[in-house]
Every structure is written in structure tokens, then in C-alpha cells.
């Protein structure tokens, strides 16, 4: 079973993604901010990280940068997909430059969510 780490400040989106993806046979771990992402990665590895950009403590961009700078070869290359309302109007080029592989816009389209997650975990 593929393991996905969901980093999302809002418990609504967090629970939603967790429920949808669990039903699609993914194993979901959720955290609330970037720092917790790094802590989790310290303990175990994942097949994909779904990352909210706008998070307290450590936002998604910063977090992604840190993940990409990890020493562990496997962990540093975990695909990261941003889930974002894109409040800061990042372009796709900017996301890629920061190490984010792809993004799913908010409001979430559930089909798109499942499709993207499948794409990055297969």
C-alpha cells in the first residue's frame, strides 16, 4: 500500500483528502505544517507528499526546499504535489524551481486529486 503524507493546515481538506485517498487504498499520514513534515520524514519514508503551500510555522515552499536538501537519497526525491489556492500566484515554473513536482488547485477537484496522486505513486 502506497504511503502518502498530507501536509495541510485545514482539517477540512486534511480529512477530506485522507478519506478520499484511504478509500482509494492509500495509507495516509497527516500533519499540520512543514516542520511536522520534516519530523515525520525523520521517522519513515513516503511515496508522495501532498503539500499545502499556505501553512503556518513552515510553509510548503520552504518545507519543500528542506526536503530536497535532505541527506537521505530516497526521501529527498519523494514527489511533492502542492495543493494550493495559489494565493501568491506562483507560476508552474516557480513551483518546479522550488522542487514541487506538480500542483492541484483549490478548490479541490476530487477526480483531479485522485488522478494526480495515482500518477505520482505508480
Amino acid at each position, binding site marked *: 500500500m502506497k504511503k502518502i503524507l498530507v501536509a495541510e493546515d485545514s482539517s*477540512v481538506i486534511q480529512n477530506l483528502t485522507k478519506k478520499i485517498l484511504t478509500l482509494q487504498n492509500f495509507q495516509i499520514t497527516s500533519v499540520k505544517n512543514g516542520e511536522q513534515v520534516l519530523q515525520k520524514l525523520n521517522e519513515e519514508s513516503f511515496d508522495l507528499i501532498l503539500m499545502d503551500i499556505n501553512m503556518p510555522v513552515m510553509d510548503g515552499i520552504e518545507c519543500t526546499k528542506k526536503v530536497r536538501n535532505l541527506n537521505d537519497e530516497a526521501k529527498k526525491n519523494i514527489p511533492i504535489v502542492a495543493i494550493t*489556492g495559489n494565493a501568491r500566484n506562483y507560476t508552474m515554473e516557480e513551483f518546479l524551481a522550488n522542487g514541487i513536482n506538480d500542483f492541484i488547485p*483549490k478548490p479541490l477537484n476530487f477526480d483531479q486529486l485522485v488522478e494526480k496522486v495515482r500518477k505520482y505513486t505508480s
Partner: protein
Amino acid sequence: MYFLESEKTFQSLADNAPVLLRMTNSNNFFYYFSKQWLKFTGKEVEEEQNNGWIANIHEEDLNDVLVTMDLAFKRRKKYEVTYRLRRYDKKYRWVLDTGIPRVSSLGKFSGYISATIDITERKLAEEAESREKALLESEKKLQKSLNQSKILSLTTNSEGIITFCNEAFLKATRKPAGDLMGKSLFEVFQPYGGDNVTKKSFRTLVEREDYTEALTGVITLDGDEILIIRFSSIILKNAKGQVIGITIVGENITERRKVRQELEKTNAQLKELFDNSSDLIQIFTSEGEFRFVNEAWKTKLGYNDEEISQLKLTDLIPKDYQSSTVENLNQIGRGERIEKFETVFISKFGKNIYVSGRVNCTIQDGSPTEFRGIFYDITERIRAEKAQSLYYKIANLTTTSSNLDALYRNVFEELNKILKIQNFAISLKDEKTGKIQFPYLITELEEPSEVKQLKSITKLLAEFTFERSKPLIIYEDGIRRIADNKKLPLHAKLPLIWLGVQVNVEGKPAGVISFHSYKDRTAYNHKDLELLDFISSQVSLALERKSNEAKIISQSARRKAIFESTTHQIWSIDRSYCFTSFNQNYADALQRYYGITPSLGGQSGFDFLVPSLSEFWKTKYDRAFSGEIVNFQSQVTDLKGNKIWRDVFLNPIFLPDGSIEEISVIANDITEKKLSEVALQESEEKFRNIFESFQDIYFRCDAKGKITMISPSVIELLGYTSKEVIGKNIDELFSSSDSIHSVFSKLRKNRRLRNFEATLYTKDGKDLQCLCNIRLVYRRNYPLEIEGVARDITTLIRTNEELRKAKELAERSLKIKERFLANMSHEIRTPMNGIIGMLDLIGSTHLDQEQSEYLRTIKKSSETLLTILNDILDLSKIEAGKMEIRKRPVNLRGTLDKLYNLFSQQASINETSLQYTVAKSLPDYFLLDETRVLQVLSNLTSNAIKFSKGRGKIYISLNEHKRKGDILILKVKIKDSGIGISKEDLKKLFDSFSQVDNSMTKKFGGTGLGLAISKELTKSMGGEIGVYSTPGLGSTFWFTFEAEIIEQPEERNLPLTDEAIQKVFSKKIPYILLVDDNDVNRKVAGHILIKAGCRVDFAENGDDAIQMIQQHQYNVVFMDIQMPKKDGVQVTREIKLLNLDHQPPIIAMTAYSMEEDRKKFLDSGLDDYISKPIQAKTIIQKVVDWIENNKPSEIVVQKMAEVPDDLKIVNTLVLDELSKYGGAEMVESVLNDFLKEAQESLANCREALRVSNYEVLRSELHTLKGNSGTLGIERFAWYVTQLEQELKRSIYEEVEKKLAQIDASFDEFKENYKLFVGASSTSS
């Protein structure tokens, strides 16, 4: 004088002495008290004299003091006493008072001198001392008590040194205490016998720390006398539990020894005198201790000297004789004479010795000291007497005893009475085997091995007796010799004497009766043998008689048994067909069949038969008389009409000469057998029929599953014939979700299985769904079986499946219907409002009467339609449980005002008067849902008006019904004088869609839902609804509801809803041009403006507008932007180009709501902007602004307040999408998540706004936007997005107001979302 002198000197000395002194005179009265004494007691001499001093003594001690002194005074001895003496300060002090008698030089007693000292300190110190002292105290007490007793006792320390001897001990040893105290116990006592007091035994005592068993010690007294003491010891311990000594309590047993010695001495002296006498001579004390017995006595009774010394007379006398013997002795003791003293002694061997003789006694000081008795043995005489009675008794027993066992027992008991036998045997030879058996055996032996030997010896001796054929007495040595001869090994003790006599039956030796003794060789003699011989003859007689009886009984019994015990009927007849014999069964049968009792001789065997039967039987009998054995079954009908079947055998009885005089008949009642045969046939047939016509499959199989029986229906269901199936294993035909194995194990556990589903295989390989009931069959003598019935439920399952589908479809349809209803009513309401609004407008134009009539009809219909729609909407909400009660502060009087305003006109049209009262006691303000209360009120009121057209009054009252603290239950009554309602109708009045009379609906209009809705509404407001009515006279509807009393609320600007347009412009009438290609828009906006007091011209397109604006001086122009030929921007541009003198401001009307557009319009020359749909307030405000202020205002607000029409509160498409992934539960849970988080988030927004942290606010809004957008909460999302975007562009205008809109929108969501939760659950 000298004495006085000296006394005075003494007194002066005494007064100064440190002790308290007193003196008595020769009469022992204290007359002198020293100064110290008086100082101590604080009293005067006079007070103390004449025994006054005694008052100072503590009352508890008083007695002690007086007794001590009195005792001393009498003897003129020294005294010493301790007591509490009261001091001057009233405190008692312990004092030691010692008094010594004064004796003058002349030896004359002159009184006591007493010295008293205060020993309180010492006493207290004593009391404070440890338990050690207390123990010593208790030891002292023990010694004291021992001292007072006669028991010898002494105490030693743990080393065995004597520390105390009591008086009794000293007296017994005749030694002064000094001789013993301090000496070792082992010096004082010399060893004696086995239980010596040795250092070793003493140490053991100490170690055991226990009360011990007796020890014995001897003390040699002066003059070679010895004192023998048997003693027990008590260990003394100190506080630490260590052994500090032993107290020994002894008993002087020297006396007993002395007696023995005396006895021995006397014995020697008297021996010669009496030894030659065969009489039993004894001398005994009044206590019964023997002083002397002669040799004959010893021989007779078997005791030796040692034993005699321990004996008392009473020990020798059997209980039965004790009281009489003692009484006789007492008589003699009193000096009376008894000529013939008779008693019984028990010998050492337990033999009773009857004695008779004389007893006299020595009397000293009036009491007997020594008895002398001379007895002679009268046992033989007594025995003879008893034997006499025994002979008689046994002879009697022989004739009366019902069985031999009782005889044997009685014989033994009688014999025992006179001979004291403990070992008795009756040995009988078995007639056939010749083996000896013991029908009766009594022995004192207990060991099985001994008993076994006894039996073999008894057999041996019985054989020996047979050989000798005479009564025998055999002694131990004889027995041993006989045993040796017969090579019988002996291992246990042998009888010392054995007596045996042969028992003869019919002149042949049949057995031996014997008894023997293990104790006394002389126990029995030849007289006893005679007795036994006699008994034997009696037993022989008895045995003979019993044997004869038995023979007789067995023969006749055997015959009778055969004859009677059989269940067969047996009889015999002679040549004249008369009964010669019959058994009871036959007699009973005849009684039963014909009600007659047969009798022997003379009665014919068919007297009682009907002629046909007589003939039948006669034929049979005759055949038998001809020598034939006849067998047949006969059937008779008994008195009760029951058919009786008999199987009959006729046997000719051949006499020795071959002739036949009699026939014996044996008949057997076989009716039951016959009947059960028939019943069995019937039931088998019945079962077979059921079995054959069974539609389900009945099967039976053994415990391994092998089918043993199956109903023929198997061919119809499975295509197999029964034959094909029988013998197969059941799992070849059957499978279920459980394995066969588990089915069987469940069966074993529960004994039966009900309704379990299984699949059977048909012959052509199809599956057949079956429902099975199986049980275990237990039948006696049959192996375990399983039987069951399988029913084809294929069709049932299919039907169920179809039913389920149909039900689901129906449910789904119902849900869809509900949603459809809810949505449709909502959707239809909007155009209906448009229609009604327009109708109103048409009404305000000039119409002829006909047109007005039509219009009124249309309007009425429309309104009815709207009511219906509203009702349906309400009801569907209520039924879905989605009706919420929203309580707000309400002035109830105002509510009733509103009601009145609403209905007064309608009432007056209906020629009905409407009145209402509110109880004066009610407060003004309540917390309640006014809309709902009003709804119920309206429903009831409009009904009342409808149904009482032209019939007087409608009277509405509002009163308090109940009160629970601040919560009031209010009751409203609406009384009409209408047509009333019948009883039957009352019942269904409040049900959905049930108006009392359908014709009424037609006549009076309405959906019939009003009351049902009202009922639900009142229920949801904590109230009830009801009606009482008299048909023809009117009805009173009432309802109750809960309302909380509150203070008058602050005036709040509640949002205006559908407020009537007020006439704003009255002084100066604005002249307005309205340009719009859409007719409806034109009319709506125009209507609003006209109502507000404006004058309005309309233009349908830009060109008309350009023309008109040149012709008229308009104050304001409202310009639609999207128009087909020229759009509003273009038209405006052209108008502006005209450069009119009276150029009016041109205000754009558009559905475009984007900020950018606004800018574009303004840039294009438009003066202002309002968004569509047009709201009355907004458009009027615009006119006011431009006419009065000549400037635009709050454009942004107006714009922001508008939400695009097509946005939904919750877009169900999104929810459906979501439920596709996780079903209805997920939708609900996610919405709940959102509700919770959004609430927090909004609170955060408020806080952020308060501290003007726009970044936080924006961030919160961003999250809210994402979340609400994701969940399709569109209207809310729209508001949130608007504000977020502005903040992003750093526009901070009226943020608070916008946030309030967001809140309102959130409230809107909260109120509605549950509707959608239920609604989105259909997709899977």
C-alpha cells in the same frame, strides 16, 4: 510513774521524729498522736482521738486497715498495713503503718505504738514498675492460692532451685521451709519409678515451656518414711517470655502405696485362715477398696493382687446390680442385718458370677469403716434356673419363629442371657454339595484373617463332631491336635474352649451349633453342653419343619405360578363341556367380556355365549375331544362393544389309557397386537402418502452423511430418482456457506438447525437454492440419524431480490420526489412572485369591468398557487426534519397586530368580523419564532374566515396556559361561528392532505396541508394543537407554544424583507428614463420607481432613448448595458456627444459585477452603476443620490451586496461528486468538519480585523475560500473570495461590513446545509 515519765520522754521524742506516731491505751484506743501526725492530717488531737483518725483513711482501704488491726490487737501481735491516709491538703497519701504491742517491764500489755511513714513516692514507683513485677505479683498470687490449697506445690527457678513451697507441701514433707528453700529440686527428690524428676526431664520441661504430664518423685522423710509425689508443672515466664521458673503442683500418692502395703500385710496374715475356704471372702473399706480377698476369690474372679489393689467393689458389680448392692451395704453400714446378701461379680473374663452370702461391717464413731463379706457361688443354680426358662423359650421360639434367621438370632440372644457367650456359630451342611456354610455367626474377633481362620476351624470341628456324632467339648490343645491332623495351618489365636452339638434333619446330620471362648478355658462346662444339645434338637426340629414347608410351598407354588402368573387364560372342560378348572385370568376375562363369573362343576363352557358362538366353540371342543390339537383365533365383542381378539389352543388331555375326558384350553388376548397392527398399517399409509406427495425434499442420513431415505419429490426438484440418491453421501448433493463438517458439529451442539440456506445440485448440474431445517434424530436402539427438509427457495430469493430492488427504487424515487418538490417549489416561487407583482401592476392600469374581473381571478389563482407552493415547501421541510425554529425577541402583541392587519380585510370581504384579545397579564416581549407562530395563526385564522363566511364573529384570544419559570406556555384560541366539524372528521383533521371534505377544498380552496403543517409547527415549538367543535355552531381551534419571557430588547435594525415601497418623492417628482430591452426588467424597475413617486418613461432600445432624451428633460437615466443593437455604453457615448443642456446622469444597470467592468463603464462616460437584479432600495437610493446630492454614493457596497444569481448555497453537484468517493457519511462528516473549522476561522477573522492584522485575515480567508470552494459552498465562497481579493489588492474599505456579509452567508449555509446532506446520498 516511771512509766509515765518514760512515756512523756517518748512523746517528746516522738513529736520530733520523722515518722508519724500514735499510741493506744491498753484498750487499744489511740489516744496519742504525735505532732508530726497532726501536722500531716491537719487536725487537732481531739478530732483524732476516739477513733476520729479513722475518718482520714481512704474508704477503699478502711476495711483492710480495721481487719488487720483488729486481728493484731486480739492476738497482741505486731501489725503492718498499707493504706491511703488523707493529708491536710485533702490529698490521699500512701502510708505504711506499723504497730507493735507495748509490754511493760512487768510483762503487762499496755497498748500499741504505731509508726506511720509516707510511702507514696515508693508506692508510685512500685506501680510504675514493669510487667516483671506484675508477673511476680501474679506468681505470688499463684503461690498464695497454692498455699491455701491442699495441693502440694513448689516453685523453682529455671535452674531447678526451689524458691517456694506451699504450706501443704511443708506439712506433707514435715520439713521446715528452710530445709527445702534454696535447694535443688533434684536433691530433694529421689528417683522413683519411670517418670523420674531428673535434670534431663526438667530441662525438657523448660524447653517445652508447657504444662506437662505427670512426673513422679520421692522424698524420704525422717524415719525411712517416703513421700511419693506425682506432679504436673506450670512454666513461669518473665516479661520477655523467658522461662524463669516452674511451679510444680503435686499429689501425694503415698497413701495409696500404704494401702497396698497394708493389704499385703493383712493378706499374709489372713491368707492361711481363708485360703482353704472355697467361699469368696473379701474385706473392703467403706470406699470399696479391697483390703483382703482369699485365694478362692482370686481364682473365681481371675484378678491378681496388683489388679485387686486398684479395684473398687463397684468396679466388679454389673450396672444392673450396683444400686441394689450399694443400698444393701448402706443398710449394713447402718447396723442392720441382711440374712441373704446376693449380688453379681464380673470376672476378669467378663463372666457374671452370681454370689450369695453374708456381709457385716465394723462401725467406728457411727460410720462404717470396714466390710467383711463371705459369699458362695450360686452361678450354677442361677444358670439352671435360667436354663429352665431357656428350654421353654426356645421350644416356644421353634414353633413360632417365622423364619430360621429370626430363630437363630433368638436362640443366640436367649443363650447369651445365661451363658455370656460372645462367640456363637450355626454351621449347616449344604444338602447337595456337603459344604459347610454359616447361616449365623457371632464372633468377638475383628481381624478378617482371624475370622477366616475361625471359620475354617469351625468347619473342621463341625466335621469332627459329625464323625463323633455326639456333643463335644474341645479345649485349645484338642483343637490344635485336630487341626494338625487335618493339616490346617494355624496362625491366629484359638478358642480356649469350644462346645459343639450336632443338628439332625430327618435323622441325618445337617449341621453343628457351637460356641466358644477365647478368654476362659473354664467358661463353660458339661451342663452348658446339655443346654446346647437341647437347643440343637429344637433347631433340628425347626429346620425339619421349615424344610418340609419349603418343599410343599415350592411344589404347589410352582403349579399355581404357572397356572396363575401367566397372562394367558387357561381353563379345562370335561365331556359335558363343564369347567373342571380355570385360572384367575380366565375368570377376569369372562367378567370383562360378558359380566359373568364362571364356576366349577355344572356350568357349561358356553352357557354365556350367543348360540352362534356356542356352536362355533362346540365344534372346536369336539375336534379336540377327537384327539386333535386345535388352534384358532377368535373374536368376541365385549359388553362395551370393544372387539377382543384371542389366540386359542385346545389340547386334549390324554389319560394313561389313551382316553380323553378333559380338554385344556389356553387362550391369549391378542387384541392390542391386532389393533396396533391395524394402526401401524394405517399410519404407515398416512406417512407414505405424505411422503409421496411431499413437495419439499425430506431426507434422512446417518451420522456420516450417507443418505438413507429421501422423499420421491427429489426427482421433481433435482431430477434424481430416490434410488439414485439413497446411499450417496449428502455432500454430493449439497453445499452451504458452512462446510458439511461444521453443519454437523453445529447439529451436535444444538440438535437442530433452522432456516439455513444451502445449495443443492440438480442432476443436470444446476444449483438450487434451498432453505433447510435439520435435526438430529435420537431413537432408542437406533444409531444416530439426521433428518431434514429442504425447500426450494430459488423463486423466493428472486422475488425477495425484486422486492428489495422495487423498495429501493421506491425509496429513491421518494427521495428524488422530495428533493424535486423542495427544489421545484422554490424555483416556482420566484416566477410566481413575478406574476403576482405584474398582476398588481396591471390592476393599477385602466381596465374595464370584465378585464378587472378576469384579473382578479388570475390573481386569486396565483395567490392560491403560491400558498400551495409554500405549504408544500414547508411540509417537505418538516417531513424531512429540516424545519428549524429560529427564536428572536418578539413583541407578541405586535404579532397579533400583524395578523389582524393581514386578515381584517379578508374577513370583512367575507362579512365576518375579526377580533382579538391578549391577556393583560402577559408581558410584551418573548423569545420565539414569530414567523412560525404567525404561520399557525394565519392558517387557523384563514380557515376560520373561510369557513364562516357571513356568519358572524371570529374571536382570537391569547392567554397564559402554564408557566415553568421564565418559560410560558401560551395558548391561542381561535373561535369561529362557522359550519363546525363532525366528530369523525375531527379525528383526521390534522393529517396531511386531508381536508375535512374534498368538496370543501374545492369550495374554499387551500391545500389541506395547513393543519398538518400547523400541527408539526406547534409540536416543534413545544406545544400542541387541537379543536373542539359543534357542527353547525362553529369550532374553536387552539394551539399552545413555548415562549421565554425576556426584557424589552434593544432596538435593532433587522434586515428589511420585502418592505413595502414607500412613497419617497412627494415634493419634487423625479422624471426618469428607463432604457432596457427586456420587458420584465423594465416593468419591475419602472414599477418600483413609479411607486416611489417618480415619473418614468421607457425606452426599448438605444435609438429610442437618444430621441427621447432630446425631447424631455429627464432627471436620471437608467441604462441597460446589454442591448441587442447598441449596447448601453455606445448609447451613452452618443448621448454625451449631443452635449445637451440638461444632460442627466446616466446610470448603468448590468449583471456584470466585476470591479474592472465598473471602471470600464465609468471610463466610457457612464455616471454611475447599479447591478442587476434591481433592488428597490438600491434603485431608489440612486435616484435620491443623484437628484438631491447630484453624486453617486456607496456604489461599492451595493455592488458587493449582490451575489451572482446562479451561485448556490451548496452546490449539490459538488457534493454528489464527493459522495461518489465516500458516500453520504463522508459528505456529512466533511461538511461538519467545515462547519466547525469555518466557525473558528471566522472568529479568527474577527480577531484579526480587531487588531487590523489584514495579512492574518487574508490568510484565513484564503483557507476558507479553498475549503468552501472545494465543498461547493458557492455563495459563501463568493463573499469570501471578494474580500480576500480586495485585501490582496490592499483595498481595506468597509472590511467589517463585508465580514458581516460573510457571516450572514455562513449562517445561511448553516441553516441549509443539512438539507443537502440528506439530498446527496443517492449516488453510490
